[in-house]
């Protein structure tokens, strides 16, 4: 059997039991590699459960800086007997299976092409600790210590991480370090360390980019910080996985950064509402009244908010909605990732409605777009929906550091002050298209004793906001809203285009968390002689660069994480693009899409030299 040999380029997966404290130990493992200067992307694969069900943690280590899922597992560390049979099967040939050897392994499960490394974690714990809770917790630290020996992780880095983790609870540092040492010693005494798969400290890492100043951060925290920097003062929300941590992080930062120094009072208000309907109502009320307001939700919440989104679109209220997507429909797989709400968000509400969507793909972009969403909402006086997802929101990703330009001012859009109203000769008309960009002027309630008051409504009205059922006035207003949506193209983030080194007629189009594995797949194909240009969509409405890119290529792969090729449909619908040249590559089993599966789909399609309009490749077919 040939063992996998790899330095700074492998996938390790941890199979744990939910609720046993493994998450923080696994995090420490990933962070230690990150601190050794090696790009790393950890992913938590967790159940909708508090305690007892299987949970996994997958860490990709990639010297080249590929941060998407690669596919396959080189090392499996399994401390969960429930999932052991499947976990053994999932290891790549030549890989390693590290398990708790306190009880003998069922020999029927053994594979010849995998090396089994047994460490008696439970036995060590029973010997060392009397308390049942400590046995459970320190078992995790013991395996982290063992991995340090097996994979050549700098033990001093791990010790620093323990000190960071238990800052303020110094009593816990020594026992945690001791637990790691137990594992470390056992591995050193019983195995040849390090294994063929290992890490080596890299001072300058990555081939094409320098990652030295990068950070490791989850998208939801970055999104929350974006809302702080973007000036959000009101948040209405309802708890739902995977968006809950957006508002929780917002509150945490607000309690640090938004306290009035004179009075100790809050420069923010957060209301946990009775449901998502109310959460969106709170945002609309606050935004109508001139505060910057937002909510965060996921699929089922988006469904509930559609009624209010229609109102905000039609009444032109600037709201910000963070949609951290998970798999649907209905409850779907609530703790698994997907990009399944593109159409539901783009056209949320009955009647003719279109919403501005933003697609971040890194924590840095979550921060930037979240802050920018408030400017866009005010500028365009319409809902701005940021389409994050569970993988981006809840997992830590290596990302460029967050930056802020201190000279930046909030763009509050077209708002008339009392002085503006005094200087106006013409009658104020809330829905008058004075600048011919489809965006009218608004006033905040309470601005002026005589001028500028109007009645906001979800029913049809004339340009002076007076109720009317006049068909002409209705059509005029609907056309203006369409014009405003055209104007939006000038303001939303432009797509990112990367051209291949050789000229090619093949393109790939993607967005959000699909981007990282797509770039990797494109590089894999380039090595095989297939050149592919790429375009990463960052917003809807699509600007003209998108249509141009598609028209300049004969074949464009549209790669996304849902069943129905929703972005492809949106492109066809909005751009009147020829469907035949847009080839879907789809993945929607709830796990993040992998570079290997994307490469395989594109390779199949390109080498057959035939174009099938839609190929639906699930993870089952493309083993990831």
């Amino acid at each position, binding site marked *: 059997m040939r063992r996998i040999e790899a330095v700074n380029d492998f996938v390790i997966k941890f199979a744990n039991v939910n609720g046993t404290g493994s998450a923080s130990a696994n995090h420490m493992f990933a962070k230690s590699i990150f601190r050794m200067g090696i790009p790393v992307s950890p992913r938590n694969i967790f159940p909708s459960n508090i305690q007892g069900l299987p949970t996994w943690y997958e860490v990709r280590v990639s010297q080249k800086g590929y941060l998407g899922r690669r596919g396959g597992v080189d090392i499996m560390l399994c401390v969960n007997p429930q999932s052991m049979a499947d976990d053994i099967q999932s290891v790549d040939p030549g890989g390693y299976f590290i398990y708790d050897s306190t009880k003998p392994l069922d020999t029927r499960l053994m594979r010849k092409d995998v090396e089994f490394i047994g460490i008696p974690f439970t036995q060590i714990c029973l010997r060392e600790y009397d308390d049942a809770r400590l046995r459970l917790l320190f078992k995790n630290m013991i395996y982290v210590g063992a991995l340090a020996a097996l994979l050549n992780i700098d033990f001093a880095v791990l010790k620093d991480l323990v000190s960071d983790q238990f800052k303020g609870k110094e009593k816990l540092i020594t026992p945690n370090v001791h637990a790691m040492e137990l594992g470390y010693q056992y591995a050193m005494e019983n195995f040849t360390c390090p294994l063929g798969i290992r890490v080596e400290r890299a001072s300058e890492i990555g081939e094409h980019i320098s990652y030295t100043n990068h950070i490791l951060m989850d998208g939801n925290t970055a999104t929350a910080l974006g809302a702080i920097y973007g*000036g959000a003062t009101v948040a209405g929300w309802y708890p739902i996985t995977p968006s809950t941590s957006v508002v929780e992080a917002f509150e945490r930062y607000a309690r640090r950064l938004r306290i009035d120094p004179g009075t100790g009072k809050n420069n*923010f208000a957060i209301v946990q509402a009775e449901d998502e309907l109310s959460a969106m109502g709170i945002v609309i009320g606050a935004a109508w009244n001139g505060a910057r307001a937002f909510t965060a939700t996921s699929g089922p919440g988006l469904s509930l908010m559609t009624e209010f989104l229609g109102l905000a679109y039609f009444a032109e209220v600037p709201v910000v909605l963070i949609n951290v997507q998970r798999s649907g429909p209905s409850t779907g797989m609530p703790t698994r990732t997907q990009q399944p709400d593109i159409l539901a968000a783009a056209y949320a509400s009955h009647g003719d409605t279109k919403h501005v969507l933003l697609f971040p793909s890194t924590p840095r972009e979550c921060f930037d777009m979240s802050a920018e969403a408030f400017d866009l909402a005010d500028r365009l006086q319409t809902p701005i929906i940021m389409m994050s997802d569970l993988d981006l929101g809840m997992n830590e990703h290596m990302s460029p550091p967050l930056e802020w330009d201190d000279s930046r001012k909030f763009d509050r859009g077209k708002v008339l002050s009392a002085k503006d109203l005094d200087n106006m000769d013409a009658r104020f008309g809330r829905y008058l298209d004075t600048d011919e960009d489809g965006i009218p002027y608004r006033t905040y309630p309470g601005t002026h004793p005589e001028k500028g008051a*109007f009645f906001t409504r979800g029913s049809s009205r004339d340009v002076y906001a007076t109720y009317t059922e006049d068909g002409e006035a209705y059509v005029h207003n609907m056309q203006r809203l369409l014009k405003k949506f055209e104007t939006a193209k000038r303001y939303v983030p432009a797509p990112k285009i990367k051209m291949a080194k050789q000229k090619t007629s093949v393109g790939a189009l993607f967005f959000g968390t699909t981007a990282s594995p797509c770039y990797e797949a494109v590089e894999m194909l380039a090595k095989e002689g297939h050149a592919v240009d790429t375009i990463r969509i960052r917003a809807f409405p699509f600007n003209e660069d998108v249509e141009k890119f598609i028209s300049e290529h004969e074949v464009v792969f549209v790669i996304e994480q849902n069943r129905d090729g929703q972005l492809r449909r949106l492109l066809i619908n909005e751009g009147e693009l020829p469907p035949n040249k847009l080839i879907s590559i789809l993945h929607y089993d709830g796990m993040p899409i992998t570079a290997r599966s994307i490469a395989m789909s594109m390779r199949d399609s390109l080498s057959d030299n035939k174009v099938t309009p839609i190929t639906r490749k699930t993870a089952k077919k493309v083993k990831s």
Partner: protein
Amino acid sequence: MSYSKPKFRHPDLPTNELGLTKSDYEGAISTLCAGCGHDSISASILNACFEMSIQPHRVAKLSGIGCSSKSPAYFLGKSHGFNSVHGRMPSVATGANLANRDLIYIGISGDGDSASIGLGQFMHVVRRNLNMLYVVENNGCYGLTKGQDSATADLGSATKKGIANPYEPMDLVSLALQIGATFVARSFSGDKRQLEPLIKAAITHKGFALIDVISPCVTFNNSVASTKGYQYVREHMSHMAVDFVPMREEICTSYQAGTTQQVCMHDGSAVHLHKTGADFDIHDRHAAMEAVYHHKQAGEILTGLLYMAHDSDDLHEVLGTVSKPLNALTENELCPGSRFLDSINEGLR
């Protein structure tokens, strides 16, 4: 269509402390049916705001959907208004109030809007003790869709169609009392002498103030068999007269001992309650619930101020927000700047 009222007014119209006349508090011409109780409520709100010398533009009017929710267009034309979606005004009002605590918030809802589609939102805005006047224009039926029974229609009551309602009614006053409302009143659209002082007291109250106003639907629910028609309500109302004395007026009215209860409000205003049918302590929530129940058992509608908390924290106080309206905060107060971001980045390496 909505039509504005002509601006021409008699030059000697009385003015209030702001020098405004009642015409400054008018809205568009009502499109509700002639004789609709809702128009009387609009007139009472208008009168109360005029007499309290409230600046019209410092009021925000909010509503849901239905006949009642149309009515904010028909008073205070110089105020911003927001006719939101069916049953969801409480959440919009919550957001609006959080954004600017300095305005006066008047929410107008109906029995369909608050007791059916919006019951959840109604209950939760009560719990939040949002500082607002919440008027339910309660006619026991869906007017705009032509007369279906609503959730507040009494058991056995019949609309114009003559079919007796087979379901138990929802009583918003009882529900509000039960979940901790800090100001609860019931009145009748046809009794402006009671309704106007209640509106004044409710506006002055710091916290959530509910006035459930029986407001007959002249078109669909004013039959003899209806318990929300003019005739029935007039005959079965247990009336408690109410006076509102603003803070700045010297309290000089004297009532016979034992017949009047004087209740001080947080800003120094006072409410005088003239006891007739009901005799209970206005600060006793339990007594209010019992009184409402007993009157209902006796076939009577108890009206007047039923409960008012001595003192309570409104949502801003619960959340500890600054006194400056949140919508007036700027980059300086809101944006932590790049230096803090540097420390964030450092912590993530």
